[in-house]
């Protein structure tokens, strides 16, 4: 839109957004996103071997559930894509009077290529998970061994110190003890003197025992604290190894997936070109016919609706499975595990919601800036500047103009419900079904 006028203007976008009626919602969404990120960062770290094992098993099963879900969805997508392609091809054959539906053979070839690629990918994923499980077990064993050795060394050191102390105490009381024992060996001492000497001897022993026990208690506490610190350290190292391994595995899987997609694209492109050529002529003819056009749209809409319904259902089941797995292993490990993927999904949905809301606010601001600029004869308005010279500041006028608008209802400001299916539900576009 070219503005008319002989002045230039600018606005302070932050100030306008801060004063926008929907700003509170924007802030609330941001707070929820920060909270989810905080929860993910603040996930409790397993401390014991049993907890680490539970976490590893849970992650393995979550990854398996994810793989299953992805595979199911790919298969469903392929199924509906092929079904739609077949229905369209049949319609094309019927309308154009051809005996064999267009691309039937090519479709079967494409299906085979996709299935083979998926299987190879699944095998590779399984192989990586097995290797990861073994690696984690090895790391846990090594850490356990290191912890055990360090603890044994500290225990031996403390025991040596206790023995030294015991000897030191015995040396200190040696003379007194000898005197008392000599007295007791003398048969001529009175009963009272005997009792007194015995009592003194007993006192020395009790005192030494108490001192030794006190040292032992201190040492035990020290040992316990050392053990805990070793366990914490081991947990942190285990966790770091796990995270690094998971990242590596994810990178490898992504690379393999990319490689698979590239290969598929190349292989399918060859088939697609032949297929496209066949359908192009038929489509040109079909598109001219409103009845056939309506039929084609109907086929596509039906397939899309069925696929979306199945996707929604499968997604809900998948999310439920994840919840159950987290609950199950939390109970086994006696600690609350966090499902990072679920938190990330939720944060992503909230971010999308926030983005939508922000865009909506910006659209509204843009419309009002246009109104104000036209009224003031301003030809161009900047939304971000470092400093103003003689340009006109339109910020306050735009704020007033927005405030004068009818207040937005909460329903209208929400683009989608947080718990609803993600807006990124994949659409169903069968390859080469229509030009």
């Amino acid at each position, binding site marked *: 839109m070219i503005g008319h006028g002989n002045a*230039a203007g600018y606005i302070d976008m932050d100030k306008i957004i801060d004063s926008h009626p929907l700003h509170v919602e924007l802030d609330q969404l941001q707070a929820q996103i920060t909270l989810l990120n905080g*929860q993910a960062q603040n996930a409790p770290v397993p401390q014991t071997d049993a907890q680490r094992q539970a976490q590893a098993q849970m992650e393995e099963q979550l990854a398996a559930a994810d793989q299953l879900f992805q595979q199911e969805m790919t298969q469903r997508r392929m199924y509906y894509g092929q079904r739609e392609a077949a229905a369209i091809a049949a319609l094309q054959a019927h309308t154009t009077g051809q005996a064999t539906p267009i691309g039937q053979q090519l479709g079967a070839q494409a299906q085979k290529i996709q299935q083979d690629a998926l299987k190879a990918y699944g095998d590779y994923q399984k192989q990586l998970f097995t290797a990861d499980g073994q690696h984690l077990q090895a790391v846990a064993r090594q850490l356990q061994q290191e912890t055990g050795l360090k603890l044994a060394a500290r225990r031996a050191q403390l025991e040596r110190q206790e023995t030294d102390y015991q000897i030191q105490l015995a040396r200190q009381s040696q003379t007194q003890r000898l005197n008392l024992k000599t007295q007791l060996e003398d048969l001529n001492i009175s009963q009272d003197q005997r009792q007194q000497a015995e009592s003194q001897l007993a006192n020395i022993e009790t005192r030494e025992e108490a001192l030794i026990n006190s040292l032992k208690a201190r040492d035990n506490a020290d040992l316990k604290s050392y053990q805990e610190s070793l366990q914490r350290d081991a947990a942190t190292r285990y966790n770091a190894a796990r995270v690094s391994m998971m990242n590596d595995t994810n990178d490898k899987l992504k690379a393999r997936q990319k490689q698979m997609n590239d290969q598929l694209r190349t292989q399918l492109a060859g088939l697609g070109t032949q297929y496209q050529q066949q359908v192009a002529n038929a489509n040109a003819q079909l598109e001219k016919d409103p009845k056939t056009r309506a039929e084609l749209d109907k086929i596509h809409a039906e397939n899309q609706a069925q696929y979306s319904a199945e996707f929604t259902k499968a997604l809900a089941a998948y999310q439920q499975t994840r919840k159950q797995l987290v609950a199950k292993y939390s109970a086994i490990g006696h600690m609350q595990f966090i499902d990072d993927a679920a938190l990330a999904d939720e944060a992503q949905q909230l971010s999308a919601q926030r983005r939508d809301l922000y865009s909506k606010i910006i659209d509204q601001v843009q419309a009002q800036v246009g109104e104000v600029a036209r009224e003031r004869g301003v030809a161009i308005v*900047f939304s971000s500047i*470092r*400093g103003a010279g003689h*340009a006109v500041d339109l910020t306050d006028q735009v704020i007033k103009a927005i405030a004068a608008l009818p207040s937005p209802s909460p329903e209208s400001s929400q683009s989608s419900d947080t718990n609803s299916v993600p807006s990124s539900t994949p659409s169903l576009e069968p390859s080469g079904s229509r030009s």
Partner: protein
Amino acid sequence: MHIRFISAIAVAIVAALALAPQALAVDINDIGFVDQSAIGALPAFASAQVQFSQFRDQTARDFQAAIKGKSQADQQRIYGDFNQKLAAKQHELFDPLLSRAQTAIALVAAQKSMSVVVDKQIVIYGGQDITKDVLSTIGQSGVIVPPVNTPPPSEVGYVDQTQIDQLPKAKAAAQAFAQARQQLGQQMQTQMAGKSQSDQATIVAQFNAKLKDEQKKDIQPLNDEIEKAVSDVARKHKLLLVIDQADRVYGGTDVTADVLSSLK
């Protein structure tokens, strides 16, 4: 009655002139904008991006293999070498494309007698969109001949924010804020451990409020000072306004040196 009417018009004209003395003298047709993301989406750029991504992925794998079993110092050195390789590839792939795009923008801007072209993102209303012309010029076969003339003096200024960020006081403010944010973040993480969801939400809200206060304390005074310095320079040079250099695509008046000297 007639005289009174004329004097009313005169008063109105005087008032209008008083309100916007510079605006009436401005030729607003010389400010254009271009959608740089549309240029980035051209097949040539997309293809270069794919090539670069592939090279980066391969380099990342080579890097992982190269650092295996190496000392920290060696790893650091290898990291530097690989980064240089990446930068060189980036230049090799993108420099010719960027140069062609820049020449196309300059040519279109010169043909339309524009004094400045900015990025589309900072224009919310009006201005001349030259994106289509630029895309079509880039798409033409053969060499794009650059315009003979340099852009005319512009009433839109620009300042290099990265140079301002290097001033000691700017660095100190950024560091103070970064430290405060880190501390607050750590505090928040500690406080959130083992708390219920609603308690955690309260902690997050408190964190955000404290962060805002810190920003007001550490960053805002400097931002105000910079804005004032830029505005003073803009008025001194009789400019409409000053934008960030990152948003300028072609032409404009560079006021960085003046702003820096005013801030020192």
